[in-house]
Every structure is written in C-alpha cells, then in structure tokens.
C-alpha cells in the first residue's frame, strides 16, 4: 500500500491545479472541468485519510463526493446549456453585465 503523506501531497497539488483553471479560463465548460479536477484532488485526499486512520470512512465519504460530483456536473451542464441558448456563446465575459 502507498504512503499516505505522498497521496495527500498529490491531492493538494491537484486541488491547486483545479483552482488555477477555474480562475483563469473563460470558457464555461472548461471552468466546470477544472472544478472536476478539484474533486479528484479531494478524492485522493480522502482515500489517503482513510488509509491513515485505518478504517474505511474516508472511502465512504469519497463515494458521497462522487455522488455530489455527478449531481453538480448534471445540473451545472444543464445551466450552461441554458446560458448558451441565451447568448449564443460559451464565453463567461458575455455575462459581465453586473460588473463595474
């Protein structure tokens, strides 16, 4: 089995990568994909924490994270489809009407 500290380092780095993508990209779908990368980091961290404490509660929580990720992907993509139908573009800058 793996070293749990190493897995948590990887999870933290994956989470940071997801945050970078969410803050940087302008395409709505890529922003959502970056949140999915964040979910992967959290999942790796949860597995490592289960390994650390010696029971399976980390994996059970990981299953719930998976459920939430699926729910969020479905609903978020439905909203993105609606937003695309409104403005005919996937650019998030098209929705900056309330800014400044």
């Amino acid at each position, binding site marked *: *089995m*793996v*070293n749990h*500290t*190493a*897995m*948590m380092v*990887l*999870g*933290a*780095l*994956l*989470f*940071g*990568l*997801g*945050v970078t993508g969410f*803050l*940087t*990209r*302008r*395409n709505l*779908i*890529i922003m959502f*994909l*970056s949140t*999915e*990368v964040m979910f*992967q980091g959290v*999942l*790796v961290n949860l*597995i490592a924490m289960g*390994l*650390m404490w*010696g*029971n*399976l509660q980390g*994996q*059970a929580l*990981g*299953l*719930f994270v*998976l*459920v939430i*990720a*699926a*729910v969020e*992907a*479905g*609903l978020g*993509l*439905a909203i993105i489809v*609606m937003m695309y*139908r409104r403005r*005919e*573009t*996937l*650019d*998030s*800058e098209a929705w900056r009407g309330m800014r400044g």
Partner: protein
Amino acid sequence: MENALAYGSYAAAGAVALAVYYAMPKGERASRPLPAALLLAIALGAVVLLLTRFGGNTAEDVLFYAMGALALVGGVRVVTHRRPVMSALYFLLVVFSTAVLAFMAGAQFLGVALVMVYAGAILVTYVFVMFLAQQASSGGGGIAAVLNYDSNAREPGFAVIASFVLAATVLGVVTRPAFPWNAPVRDADVMKATMAKAASEATESQPGQAPTYNENVLAIGETLYREDGFIISVQLAGVLLMVAMVGAIALAKKTLPRPRHDEELPPPGEIGRKAAPY
C-alpha cells in the same frame, strides 16, 4: 531545517505553479512547452527525492510516482489546453491515474466507481454538451475549433499565485510530522486487518475455505449501512440524486411552439429552431 519535507513540498508546488504559468495559452502562441516541461520535471524530481528520504515504505513506490506524474501532467494540460475537447481527454487521463492510485490504496470499489461514474457518465455528458454548444470560429467550425476566448488565459499570474498559496497551505498542514495529532496508529496493516475482519464476519464460516467475496466491497458495505455509520447519508444521497435528475430535465427542456389552426407544421428538422430560448 526542522521540517524539510514541508519546505521541499512548497518548492515543488511553486515549480508546478510556474510550469502552469508557462503552459497557459496566449493569443496565437499555444503554450511554451519547454519551460513548462522542465519545471514539471524539477517539481516531480523534488517530490520523489523528498518522499524517498522522509517518507515511508519503498515497495510500490515506482507505480505510485508514475501515476502521480501522470495525474499532475494531465491536470496541467486540462487547465492549459486551448481546445476544450483535448481538455476533456486529459481529464480522462487524470481520472484513470486516480483510479489506479485508489486501487493501490486498497480502495477497489471506489476505483471502479470512479471509472464508471467519471469516465463513463460525467465525461460523456461533457462531450455531449460540447457538441450541443459548438460554434464556428474564424478558422473553420466544429467541435475541434479554437475560439478566441479559449486562446487567452485571463490573468494567469494572479491565478497561479492564488492557487499556489492555497496548495501550499494544505501542504504545510499535511506534511507536518505530528499530523494527525491523535491518530492511534498509521499503518496499512490495520486497514488490511479491518477488511479481513469484515470479510470473515460476513461470509458463512467454513474453516479452511477462502472468502469468495471482495473484502473491500464487504467492508464498504458494512461502513455505509451500519446504524452508527453512513446510513442516513446514503438515503440523503439518493434523494439528492433524484432531485438533481428532475432539476436537470426541467432546466434543459425546450418548449416547442404549437402551430396555429391555419398554418402548417414546419419540417421536422426546423421545428426546434423556431423555439425561443428557455
């Protein structure tokens, strides 16, 4: 230095952040692969050195580092690629690397569920939405086109700094030598003993016969469905899934216009185009 692992992981995170900054697309230039690859290699080398020196066992380390490197490279390319379809494919790489890591950590059910749900459902949904929401760019249309809002990263410097600070915060806690503070034992044998105990309790005891079920699935089932376990959360997760399904169908539904009495129906390919956005 009292905690070289923490400072080394900060340096590795900084190298990853710089690599992401160099890999961001800007205008006509897609990305600068050479500095990004160099920095990523430095970061991975630093992580490998630190963990082999301060970390734990050395048994399955090669596979772990290979999968970790694949996950990180895939993550960087998800975030920095110009084309959304390629981002989705690199995310598939991340999912498979995480699934292999889950298998190595003994979480076999979670690894298979990860592949089935993420690669089989969520990514397919993403690709379908990319099909639905495609538009023509200046250099030819279709799903593989590069659009102008995809070519430019929006303030990559500040984003990289912010995410590096966030990742370094998590790393600083995780690599502390006294973390966690009250854990009774930190060993993989305890995990194996837990799962073997669950397997031996669940199967009908015929001494001398190996259990025919997967130990990890049995143990996860026992954890989820015990009274002091996650049974309420399982019911709530089911309710949440049903609500999300109803919500997604209600949101994405398009109302088609009914023709009036004196006008005829447009051909089937044209009905949907006359409908207003929802």
